């Protein structure tokens, strides 16, 4: 793999340029090239969702996305979503409901949950369970996560902080 490609993209609002191997996946680009270790590589075959990040407003699997395909893209990770305060209410709900135990799935789970809320998702437990079923959690049994997302959805619908 001698060929390297230059790619320039925006990550958490910062423009970054790197010369990378074409085979480098987004999750490894974030973790190894940029030191953004919030998203995790859980299965590296697109099932577990621990690597979920946002690209151009859509959630994607960081382990299935080639970084070289992201020229000009806008990438947001848990670090950016935290610093901007965008998902603060959701994070507070996760803390209040103890919706994370080991925390390894949590950044991906939060990113998926934020996507649910961004799509106008309601405080509907079955719909929440369906939406997060691409994100594995081995610790919680999911109920506290559903509680937290339901809580955040309800608060948002009610206009409460």
């Amino acid at each position, binding site marked *: *793999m001698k060929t390297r490609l230059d790619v320039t993209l925006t990550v958490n609002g910062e423009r970054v340029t790197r010369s990378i*191997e074409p*085979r480098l996946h987004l999750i490894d680009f974030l*973790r190894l090239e940029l030191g953004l*270790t*919030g*998203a*995790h*590589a*859980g*299965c*590296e*075959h697109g*099932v*577990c969702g*621990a690597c979920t990040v946002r690209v151009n407003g859509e959630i994607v699997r960081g382990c299935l996305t080639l970084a070289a395909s992201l020229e000009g893209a806008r990438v947001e*990770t*848990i*670090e950016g979503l*935290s610093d901007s305060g965008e998902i603060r209410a959701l*994070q507070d709900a*996760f*803390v*209040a409901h*103890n919706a*994370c*135990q*080991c*925390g*390894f*799935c*949590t*950044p991906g789970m*939060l990113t998926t949950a934020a996507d649910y809320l961004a799509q106008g998702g309601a405080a509907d*437990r*079955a719909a*929440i*369970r*369906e939406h*997060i*079923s691409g*994100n*594995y*959690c*081995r*610790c*919680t*049994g*999911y*109920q*506290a*996560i*559903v509680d937290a997302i339901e809580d955040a959805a309800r608060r948002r619908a009610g206009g409460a902080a």
Partner: protein
Amino acid sequence: MSAPRTPESLGLSRADLPNSYIGRSVPRPTARKLVEGRATYTDDVSLPRMLHAVFVRSPHAHARIASIDVARAAAAPGVVRVFTGADLAKVCDPWVATLAHLKGMKSAPQYALPLERATWQGEAVVAIVADTVAHGEDAAALVEIDWAPLPALADIETALSPETPVLHAELGDNLVFTRTADTGGVDEAFANAAHVVEATFVSGRHTGVTLEPRSILADFNRAEGMLTVWHSTQAPHMMQGVFAKQLRLPESDVRVITRDVGGSFGVKVHVYPDEMAVAAMARVLGRPVKFVADRFESFVSDIHARDHRIKGRIAVDADGRILGFDIDDLTGIGPYSVYPRTSAIEGNQVVNLCGGPYDFKHYRCTTTVVLQNKTPTCQYRAVGHPIATAVTEGLVDLAAERLGLDPIELRRRNLIRDDAYPFTSPPGMRFEGLSHHAALDKLVAMVEPEKLRAEQAALRARGVYRGLGFASFIELTNPSPFMYGIGGARISAQDGCTVRMDPDGSVVAMSGVTEQGQGTEAILAQIVAHGVGVPVERVKIVTGDTRVTPYGGGTWACRGAGIGGEAALQSAVALREQLISVAAAILQAAPETLDVAMGEIVDRASGSSRMPLAELGRLVYFRGDTLPKDAPREFVQTRHFITKDYPFAFTNGVQASWLEVDVETGLVRLLKHWVVEDCGRIVNPKLVDEQVRGGVVQGIGGALYEQCVYDAEGQLRTTTMADYLVPLAADMPDIAVGHVETPTRESLLGAKGAGEAGTAGAPAAVMNAINDALRPFGAKLFAQPFTPERILTALGRVAPR
């Protein structure tokens, strides 16, 4: 202050605890970093000149290594060194995983990388060390191994047959361990019983699937002679000892640092040969070497568990009294017993735990532990409990059916009475105090079975088949040295905590138990805040560093709260007394008139503030000249704790599952699940509930989905997350959790373990619910996982394979 401490004297028994954090759902102080992606898992640590290890793994279940040619791999871009088993044997000694108290147990020596043979598909055989993982993987493809395949031992039923090849010739046969518990009189009891029912149970081989794979980063600094290992482990001190022994270093020259751990469930409390190889390679290279398993490697090399076939019989009298259990357990553990806990404990636990909740006289149970050419098995969450509970509760339900009794009623007639303690079970387990009847009463009140029975009957008439299943269980927690230490394993049953106060009144507590998401650090902070008398926000917890924390066993077998928590309480209370004695000298007051509350020295009688702890800290640390010359100055206390009266603190509980079986597709839809459990004193109710819920879902995983599927040649067919199914949010029910609190009197805190109760009972409850749903068809299932194929086969809708 010389009066003996009691739970009451420490404010643990008051109904209203205004100045206590114990019993309150305090949010975890570590949760914020987890939700902001700012935790530090082992793979998040990078060091200068760090290299990466990649392993070439055996494609065969059993094969002789005729030759290895690493020349092309060694010359590949980025490769620093290639290691074979022979290379590593020079610096890393092999280990044998047996325990002396498991009489007759045997296993073969295991090396970091094998010397002559691979004995399971996925066993690491050659290690590449390269500048990047990608370069290492490129080079791994260039290693040429000439394999001579050997017959694979895949079927446990024939493992001991004379015609089956012996896996390790030096052992003489494929038997690792066998044990029988026998009260005597079993044959007579069964011969004379009004009813005997029997079944053959299968527990599917499954694995932990921690979302964070096994991860290790080892660095050997030649100048210091020091091995430092960042390790995703449950037991840093145990690993320190293992690295030291196998790499021939003193323990003082090995430091194990465990930061955040992304799930463990027992998977990360074992010695893995590939991880030993990483430490050995760092030792040789004098550079940091990192290894993070990919998911394929996790499936083929993380421990598996629960590969059992159990034949069980129960005898009952005409009144529904249980007369006895007669059980024969057979389990396969792979080619080696896993170091240092051994792979015989699971079977041994089945012998110890079957029939556990019940008062009966006659018991016979044998476990037979045999070798296989499959991934090694070892302790996984609720070791042996889900198996013993499924067998026991499955048989109890069969007996109820035979007698025409409600399953709840049969349990009421046979559960050990709540006033019968202390109680010793037929296989010799000693129970200090359990609450089976109180727990069952509470569960029945939550479940309201009569409503569900009415619903069940109404729906059956419409061709909808719902079932309600129950499972009482016991759980072994707070293990003493009787678990491992007496067998010669250097696994600590004691644990320590050091609590100190810093100048501004902040408190730092260093504990030997560890955090993998359970909330260990949160409960330690609550306990220390209570014990010292400071706001919980002022307490910082340090775990997972063998150079810093008191020596301890780490977190496994549900000992974090019960053992680590008690050490924390005792050290915190000692610090409080120390603070009071120094303050008394400064304030010229009698110590017994003072107390510490919410960060201040207060008058004990009135509660009025006498001095903030920050002022006490300022005086002692910076103006020691103003204190009386002989005044004590130590604002640090250490205590260690071990249980002494009982080998284990058993807990108990009962679960119920309500589900629907689609008799056309064989799919099971879980509707609701209930648990009542008794883990003694509850430090943080929310954390306990979440441990229970997570445990239930892991138990459901084993009951319905999870299975390591092997073919007849010993090839694992489930090596991706798309093949090995784990519970998803959409498939899981809401789980209601209730509690009975019977504190253990072995400690002041009174806490027992809570992390495995959910897993212990859930599969049995689900199994009994499925069989209840299928009762109109006379179909019964006892082989987990209860897949659609198996359900349709039991219904006679598809032919058996």
